[in-house]
C-alpha cells in the first residue's frame, strides 16, 4: 500500500511538472506577456524595462530554469494589479474557495445518499422516475444561471438571503447550494445505479432471508459496497468544484475566493497573479487525488492486498 501511495505521489509531481511546462509555453512562447500586461501606448524603453524586470530578456532555456526555481520557492513575484506578492493574495483567498467547495459538495453528498437509496428501492417506480427526471434537469441547468435565479428568487423577490459577499454565515447558503446542485444530481444517479446493482446481489437476499432488519441490510450491507463509486465521484466533484465551478459560482455571488480573483486577474491582465492561482489550484488538485487514493485503499480491502 505504501508503494501504491508513493507511485501516486510521483504521479502528482508529473502533473505539476506538466502544468509548469504548459503555463510556460502558453505565456512565454505562444503569447507575449509584455503585450498582454502593458498598455498599448507603452514606449520601447518601458517595454525593455518591464522585460528586464520579469527576466524576459534572457534566452528561453534560462527563462525556463528561472521559472522552475521561482515555483520551487513559491515565489511568483509581485501582482501587477495589487502590487504585493502574488502568493500572499492567493493564501488570503484560498480558504474562502475551500470552504465554499467543501460546504457545497458536502451538502450534495449528504443529501444524495438517502435520495439515491429511496429511488433504488423501487426501480421504475414513481419515486425513482421522478428522482431520475429531477436529476436530469439538475444536470441540464447551467450553474451560473441557477445562481442568478436563486438571487432573483431568494434575494430580490423574497428578500430572505443576501445576494453577495461574505459578511455573515448566511452568505454561504446560496453559493453553496448553487455549487452543490449539479453535483447532487450526478451523485444521486450514481448512488441509485450502484444501489440497484447491490440490492440484486445474492448476499442481500441472504441477509433479508435470515431476517435482518431492513435498515441493516440496506443501510449497512448494501451501502458499504455501493459507497465505492460514490466516494470516487465525491473526490472528482471536489476537484471540479475547486478548479472549475468556483470560478463561475464565485463570480455570480461576488464571493472573494480564488475563482473570482482569477477572473479579476484576467480582466486586469495580471498574468503573474493568474499563474500563481493556477499553480496553487494544480497542487490542491493533486493533493485531493492523493487523499482520494488513500481513502480508496481504506474502503476497498481488495486494494490493500494488491
Amino acid at each position, binding site marked *: 500500500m505504501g508503494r501504491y501511495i508513493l507511485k501516486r505521489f510521483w504521479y502528482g509531481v508529473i502533473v505539476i511538472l506538466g502544468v509548469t511546462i504548459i503555463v510556460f509555453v502558453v*505565456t512565454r512562447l505562444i503569447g507575449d*506577456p509584455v503585450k498582454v500586461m502593458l498598455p498599448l501606448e507603452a514606449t520601447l524603453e518601458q517595454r525593455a524595462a518591464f522585460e528586464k524586470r520579469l527576466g524576459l530578456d534572457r534566452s528561453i532555456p534560462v527563462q525556463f530554469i528561472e521559472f522552475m526555481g521561482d515555483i520551487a520557492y513559491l515565489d511568483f513575484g509581485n501582482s501587477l494589479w495589487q502590487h504585493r506578492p502574488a502568493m500572499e493574495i492567493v493564501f488570503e483567498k484560498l480558504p474562502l474557495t475551500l470552504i465554499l467547495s467543501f460546504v457545497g459538495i458536502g451538502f450534495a453528498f449528504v443529501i444524495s445518499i438517502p435520495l439515491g437509496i429511496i429511488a433504488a428501492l423501487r426501480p*421504475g417506480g414513481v419515486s425513482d422516475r421522478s428522482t431520475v427526471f429531477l436529476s436530469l434537469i439538475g444536470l*441540464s441547468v447551467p*450553474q451560473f444561471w441557477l445562481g442568478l435565479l436563486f438571487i432573483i428568487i431568494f434575494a430580490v423577490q423574497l428578500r430572505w438571503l443576501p445576494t453577495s459577499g461574505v459578511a455573515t454565515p448566511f452568505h454561504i447558503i446560496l453559493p453553496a447550494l448553487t455549487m452543490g446542485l449539479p453535483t447532487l444530481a450526478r451523485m444521486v444517479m450514481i448512488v441509485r445505479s450502484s444501489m440497484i446493482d447491490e440490492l*440484486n446481489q445474492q448476499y442481500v437476499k441472504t441477509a433479508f432471508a435470515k431476517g435482518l432488519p431492513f435498515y441493516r441490510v440496506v443501510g449497512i450491507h448494501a451501502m458499504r459496497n455501493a459507497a465505492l463509486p460514490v466516494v470516487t465521484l465525491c473526490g472528482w466533484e471536489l476537484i471540479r468544484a475547486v478548479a472549475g465551478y468556483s470560478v463561475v459560482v464565485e463570480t455570480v455571488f461576488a464571493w472573494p475566493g480564488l475563482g473570482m480573483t482569477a477572473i479579476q486577474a484576467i480582466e486586469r491582465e495580471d498574468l503573474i497573479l493568474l499563474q500563481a492561482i493556477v499553480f496553487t489550484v494544480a497542487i490542491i488538485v493533486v493533493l485531493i487525488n492523493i487523499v482520494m487514493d488513500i481513502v480508496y485503499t481504506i474502503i476497498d480491502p481488495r486494494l490493500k492486498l494488491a
Partner: protein
Amino acid sequence: MKKGKHVEKMLEGRHHERWERLHELGLELWRDKTGFIGMIMIAALLFMALAAPVLAPHDPASQDLRARLKPPVWTEKGTWNHLLGTDHLGRDVLSRVIYGSRVSLLIGAAVVLIGGTFGVVMGLLAGYRGGRTDNFIMRWIDTQVAFPGLLLALIILAVIGPSITTVIIVLSLNGWMVYGRMTRSAVLSVRQTEYVEAAEIVGCRGSRVIFRHILPNLTSPLLTLGILEFARIVLAEAALSFLGLGIQPPATSWGLDVATGRDYIFRAWWLVTMPGIAISITVLAINLVASWMRLISDPQEREKQFARQMHIKRKKQGQLSTVPVEVVNE
C-alpha cells in the same frame, strides 16, 4: 453488366434492411416517451438554428433605444412587437435567443467532432499498437485528466484572446481524453475476438482491421458518449461566454446574454431568464436522448428494462408474481 445488376440488387436489399432497422429504431424511440420528446426538441432546435433569419422577428443586433427594457408580452407593459421583451439597448430578446442557438450548436458540434476524432484516433493507436505507444498515450491521458482543465483554459484564453476558434480549440483540448479511454478499452476487448484474429491471419492491413472490423463495434457507445459530451460542451461554452472569455459582444450567445442581463437583474428579470431557459432546454433535450440511447445500446440495461416491463404487465393482469423483477434478468 450482369454482375453490376446483381450487385445493385444486393445493395437494394441492404438498403431495405437499413430502412427496416431505422423503422424499428423509430418505434423504440416512440415507446420511450422522454427520449422521443428529447429528439423532437433537438429537431426543433436544429431547425431554429438553421432558419434563424426567417424565424427571428427582428435583427438580433438592431438597437431601439426608445423601446429599452420592455417586458415580455404576457406582463402588463409588454407589447406584441417584442414577444420576450427587449434588453438595455432595445434589442429583441426573442431574436437574440433564436440566433444564440447557432453559436451553441456550432461550437458543440465542432468540439465533439474535433475532440472526438482526436480521442478515437489516440485510443485506436493505443489499443491496437499496444506496448510503448499504449503506455505513452495512457500516461498522457492520465496526466491530462488530473489537470485543472478550466484554469488552464482560462490562462490560454487570457493570453491568446477569446474568439470562437479559441473556444473550440480549448474545449477540444480539454475533452478528448474520455473518447481515448473508451476507444482503447473497446479495442482491447475486440482484439481478442476470433474475427479480428481471422482478419489478421488472412492478411488484412492494420488500417483495414481497424476501420472495417474494430471501429464498427464502437459506433453506438461512441455515439452515446458524443451526445453526452455535446451537452457538456454547450454548458461549458455558455459558462465561458458568461465569464467574458467566450463569444465576444457583437456576436450573440446565450451565455453572453445572461452576462449582460445580470446588470439589470433587479429591474428586468427576463434578460437573465430567457437565454438561461434556452440553454437548459437544449441541454435537457440532449441529455434525454443520450439516456435513451444508453438504454437501447447497452444490452444489460435493455434486459433490465424488459424484465421491468414484464413485471409491470404481470402485475396489471392481476397475477401476483412471486418472482421479483431482479431475478428475471439473472
